């Protein structure tokens, strides 16, 4: 029977999921135990795994889970936050419509009635990203970004900021007592594996691809016994082992070395006993020659994908060659990737066998971990990756697996972090017949009005103080109102005035830029170059950059005036000088951008979204949607601060942040962790897409069979 899918129903479903998921979110989150039908027991705080193991039946829930998992495939993290956002968005939407239904009688109502149609809201959701979100991120949020690179031009990684990134990630993923240790382990591993500071993308990709082969789980030992070992550890034992001192070489084989009587689809005809014996002898002689030839090339290790015959092992042993059989093809391909060695094909003539098929090995020893034998290889790397393995210990398999997954996930996140994410609101601006330079100028002119706006929002609370006590701290507006001891507007104006002069210069630069665009189209193309750190090639742009530097200089004056240096900003270099114009490239979230963890992204975005919504140059429904999204965003910091008291409680933290933002001061943060901005941004974007899908579906029709795929035209021939 077809069931109509209402927002109410979807909300009910997602609320259930939220209660489960929110118990494991953030540093105070707890673990969930999942049992598998095979009897395995898994520990997990990974949202994706939890949702997957629930095996939900409800169609809406299943749709949500599939949305989450498609997001996870791209970003690797954020499943729990996804569900929480979605839940709060739906809740706010639901509440908003309820309110509207109640006020239908008013004159305003007619317009509202239209807006309430889900379809319209869904459309607004879709356009929200391009019209509002990207714009806000690029123009307002960007100045708060920090970078994990210690010097942005050369893209060298800053170890301490990467550590705090891992720490923040692990706080949400592993057991309470282990995040510090494991994050130390991850950054140790990462920096040991990198041959040099640059070229880390290759390392991340390789570790991500081959993590299963690069990690060993050991149960029954305390977690603190986990370690990083140099070299590669193979999950096999030697068939025959000869210890060799000093350097040696290895070969990789994919097939049986000794020749067989017949290969597939061929026949071996035996005509006499003598002939049979001779061919057996020939096979043996051949094997012996190959082995002694290998030895003459200083090969002392043979890695084979298949099981070799006793004869091969015997002759290898006679020649002092250690043999490892039955290696997985993944292990062998990893070895080939690291060393660049090609698989050895037994030659027809020994002279054809060249040295190019061998790889250098520093050492090769058996390794015993918890009475299980492994092989420890000291490979010499040919690429940016210096082989290292990580041994993860834990009391039970479930915990080891959790740590493995987390470790692997960290590399997924790093890969995501070092990609540039383009924002495409420019294109949208063009659609609206608005030249980019105009838009920029307009925006900057609008930002002149910002101080006034701040006054406005500050003044309003005084008018509404009576209401304040009755309403809980639910609404973000009221949070500003509870600002019991606001700094006088005068001080704020002072703090702003240098800023606004800076913005005037900015406007000038924009205009210069606009003129430049008009004059030389080829230069425009250069400026549109998506590379984030374009070197200046023309004097005009160089001049522009100097002016930008002036701006930044002045801005740093502003910060100095504000006198609120923080730990994180002192330690990390901002992505850009806070007010530098971003129009020398396409708008994007630059690679390696991070923000302090603990809900700062959400609060910032919330603040700027509300600002934009109140400026009123958006359509009515976008404005309402902005407000709804801004409200839903606060759910994350609220959950994160749930157990905190006093200074760190949510209302206090929110007020503090909002206040520093209004004063134009740099953000101060008490938390030491960092999180990637791009992944947060992506998360929000995919939640909005999921919301759109939920809103646009009106009926759920159960069918007995799987929905058929669209029929091929060829299938008609069969009829």
């Amino acid at each position, binding site marked *: 029977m077809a069931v109509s899918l209402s927002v109410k129903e979807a909300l009910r479903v997602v609320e259930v999921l939220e209660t489960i998921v929110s118990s494991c979110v953030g540093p105070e989150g707890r673990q969930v135990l999942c049992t598998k039908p095979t009897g395995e027991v898994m520990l997990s705080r990974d949202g994706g795994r939890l949702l997957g193991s629930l095996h939900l039946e409800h169609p809406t829930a299943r749709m949500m889970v599939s949305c989450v998992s498609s997001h996870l495939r791209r970003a690797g993290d954020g499943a729990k936050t996804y569900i929480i956002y979605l839940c709060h968005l739906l809740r706010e939407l639901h509440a908003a419509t309820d309110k509207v239904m109640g006020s239908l009688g008013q004159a305003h109502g007619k317009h509202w009635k239209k807006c309430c149609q889900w379809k319209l809201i869904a459309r607004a959701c879709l356009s929200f990203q391009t019209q509002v979100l990207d714009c806000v991120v690029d123009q307002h949020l960007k100045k708060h970004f920090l970078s994990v690179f210690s010097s942005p031009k050369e893209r060298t990684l800053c170890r301490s900021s990467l550590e705090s990134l891992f720490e923040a990630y692990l706080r949400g993923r592993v057991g309470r007592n282990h995040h510090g240790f494991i994050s130390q382990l991850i950054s140790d591993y990462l920096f040991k594996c990198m041959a040099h500071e640059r070229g880390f993308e290759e390392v991340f990709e390789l570790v991500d691809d081959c993590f299963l082969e690069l990690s060993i789980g050991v149960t029954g030992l305390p977690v603190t016994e986990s370690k990083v070992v140099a070299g590669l550890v193979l999950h096999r034992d030697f068939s025959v082992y000869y210890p060799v001192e000093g350097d040696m070489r290895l070969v990789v084989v994919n097939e049986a070395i000794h020749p067989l009587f017949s290969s597939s689809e061929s026949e071996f005809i035996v005509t006499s006993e003598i002939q049979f014996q001779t061919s057996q002898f020939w096979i043996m002689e051949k094997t012996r020659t190959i082995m002694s030839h290998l030895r003459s090339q200083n090969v002392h290790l043979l890695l084979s994908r298949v099981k070799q015959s006793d004869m091969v092992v015997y002759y290898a042993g006679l020649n002092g060659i250690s043999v490892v059989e039955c290696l997985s093809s993944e292990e062998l391909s990893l070895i080939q990737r690291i060393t660049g060695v090609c698989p050895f094909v037994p030659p027809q003539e020994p002279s054809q066998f060249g040295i190019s098929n061998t790889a250098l090995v520093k050492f090769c020893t058996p390794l015993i971990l918890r009475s299980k034998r492994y092989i420890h290889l000291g490979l010499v790397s040919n690429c940016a990756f210096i082989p290292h393995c990580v041994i993860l210990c834990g009391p039970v*398999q479930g915990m080891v697996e959790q740590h493995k997954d987390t470790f692997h996930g960290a590399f997924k996140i790093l890969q995501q972090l070092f990609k540039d994410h383009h924002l495409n609101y420019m294109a949208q601006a063009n659609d609206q017949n608005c030249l980019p330079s105009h838009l920029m100028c307009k925006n900057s002119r609008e930002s002149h009005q910002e101080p006034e706006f701040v006054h406005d929002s500050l003044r309003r609370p005084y008018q509404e103080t009576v209401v304040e006590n009755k309403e809980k701290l639910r609404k973000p507006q009221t949070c500003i109102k509870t600002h019991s001891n606001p700094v006088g507007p005068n001080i704020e104006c002072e703090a702003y005035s240098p800023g606004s002069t800076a913005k005037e210069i900015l406007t000038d630069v924009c205009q210069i830029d606009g003129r430049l665009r008009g004059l030389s189209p080829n230069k425009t193309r250069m400026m549109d170059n998506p590379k984030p750190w374009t070197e200046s090639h023309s004097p005009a742009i160089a001049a522009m950059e100097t002016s930008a530097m002036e701006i930044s200089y002045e801005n740093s004056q502003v910060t100095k005036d504000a006198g609120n240096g923080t730990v994180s900003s002192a330690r990390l270099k901002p992505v850009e000088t806070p007010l530098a114009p971003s129009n020398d490239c396409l708008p994007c979230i630059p690679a390696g951008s991070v923000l302090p963890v603990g809900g700062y992204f959400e609060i910032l975005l919330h603040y700027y979204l509300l600002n934009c919504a109140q400026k009123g140059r958006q359509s009515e429904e976008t404005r309402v949607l902005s407000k709804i999204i801004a409200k839903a965003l606060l759910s994350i910091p609220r959950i994160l601060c749930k157990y905190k008291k006093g200074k760190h409680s949510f209302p206090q933290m929110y007020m503090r942040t909002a206040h520093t933002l209004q004063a134009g001061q740099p953000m101060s943060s008490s938390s030491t962790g960092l999180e990637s901005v791009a992944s947060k941004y992506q998360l929000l974007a995919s939640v909005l897409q999921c919301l759109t899908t939920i809103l646009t579906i009106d009926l759920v029709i159960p069918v007995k069979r799987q929905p058929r795929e669209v029929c091929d035209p060829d299938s008609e021939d069969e009829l």
Partner: protein
Amino acid sequence: MSRLEAKKPSLCESEPLTSERVRATLSVLKGIITSCYGPSGRLKQLHNGLGGYVCTTSQSSALLAHLSVTHPILKILTTAMQNHVSCFSDCGLFTAILCCNLIENVLRIGLPPTTVIKLNKHLLSLSTNYLKSEFCGCRIPVNFSNTEMLLCLVRSILTSKPACMLTHKEVDHVSALILKSFLLTIPENVQDRVILGKSIIVPLKGQRVIDSTVLPGILIEISDVQLMKMLPTKNSDSLKVALFCASLSGDLTGTGEGSMVVTYGVSLENAALDQLLNLGNQLVNDHVDLVMCQKVVHPSLKQFLSTHHVIVIDRLGAALMEPLSKVTGTQPIGSLDSVSPSSYGSVKDLSSARFGSKHFLHLITYESTICSFLLCNRNETTWDELKLTCQTALHVLQLTIKEPWVLLGGGCTETHLAAYIRHKACREPESILKDGYSQTELQLVVGAYCSALESLAGSLEHDGGDILTDMKYGHFWLAQTNSPPSINWQDLLSRCGCGLYSSQEELKWSFLKSTQHSFVPQTCLPQETVISANKLILDCYTAKLSGLQMAVETANMILDLSYIIEDQN
């Protein structure tokens, strides 16, 4: 048609530890393992109700392996303990009881798990740092110049396994044998890296325990018919040995994926047999005296070789191959044509031996790190238990060589540690409290942690005796049942749990359960006390330290659970 079925939705249980059912099952498990602990522990009989194998045991490895638990929390607990046991062999019950005690105590104090978990971690690092430190009052360095301490260690392990059913005399005999067989596995001339040999346990069930013995070299069981055929060998200094890993049965292998066409009248078996006899000829020409084969040897080849006074032993199995190739110095031969002379090895002498109803061929070798441990016990059940115990003891000795310390046994380490932690957390709480915990929270968690350790020591006693601790060393003292009230403790008690201190010293005692005020247990064990004491009860340092960490980590893990999602498929 595909047989895809929709998956059943999972069962989701929130806050599992608050449920009465889970608490009840946890306490049942705790009851089972606690009653097995220590020398006077009660035995458990495990059987499946359908006849067949019955296991009588009090060892954690056997008990946990046979026990089938259903609740995920119990499953994760028992798996953690089994993993510990497979790493260290010893201290399985210790770990399991401590873990259960911790969980139970923490649930009782009712603090939020997040706080408890973090504080537990602090207390654990306090404990491990103390046990690793120089001034630790319950750790003794092992004296390798004297076997006394190692013997004490082995004897403590044997006495703590009552299901072996050994008398005092037997315990002494077996522990001496265990130590002997361990010492035989240590190579004489040691390079930078010691590689221990192996002692192979040979089963002899139905014999008296006193008949157990240790022989250097390898024992191979053979039938008496084979033994009859065995001719007295040449009187030479050594015997030349060839060891085959390839089958000598004359079967054709490795013909490839394609087909083989054999012309009528051509017999491949004949060709193969010819090849085998050629090989036999080569062996005889090379003056090989003993041929051993992992797999089967063709009867004709056997016949041929024995007419040339070559002893043939086949069907050795894969397990014996590695030690055999090691002691004889041979390289397992995988080729049937032209054996390289370098792959032959040698043995010093060969003799036949008879133990009980079994006949053995005894290879006496030049390389002497491998020995055979003939282990006897009255029946199958007790033999299994004894074998496990011997393996545990051998493993513990290996661990002790790596980390040459032992801990005081008999409950003294636990009570001493508890007293130390109580004192430390009471007097110097600053290092822990800086993370923002209140003094009360700390006191509660310290109470839970220490009473878990103390009641662990208390579970050594199963007959209702009184458990005391002294206020100087913090050791464990046991008083007999039904002791009259208001007596002089000094006369009633004789020695503490580990046997280090005598009651004749000027000591003050108090009941373990009622110890509330903290005192400073004496740290820095003086060397003289240890030397003067004999027949100490000792525990493996490595296993116990790791067991402590494992117990606290597992308890933390279980306390941290907020949901259980059970897959119903």
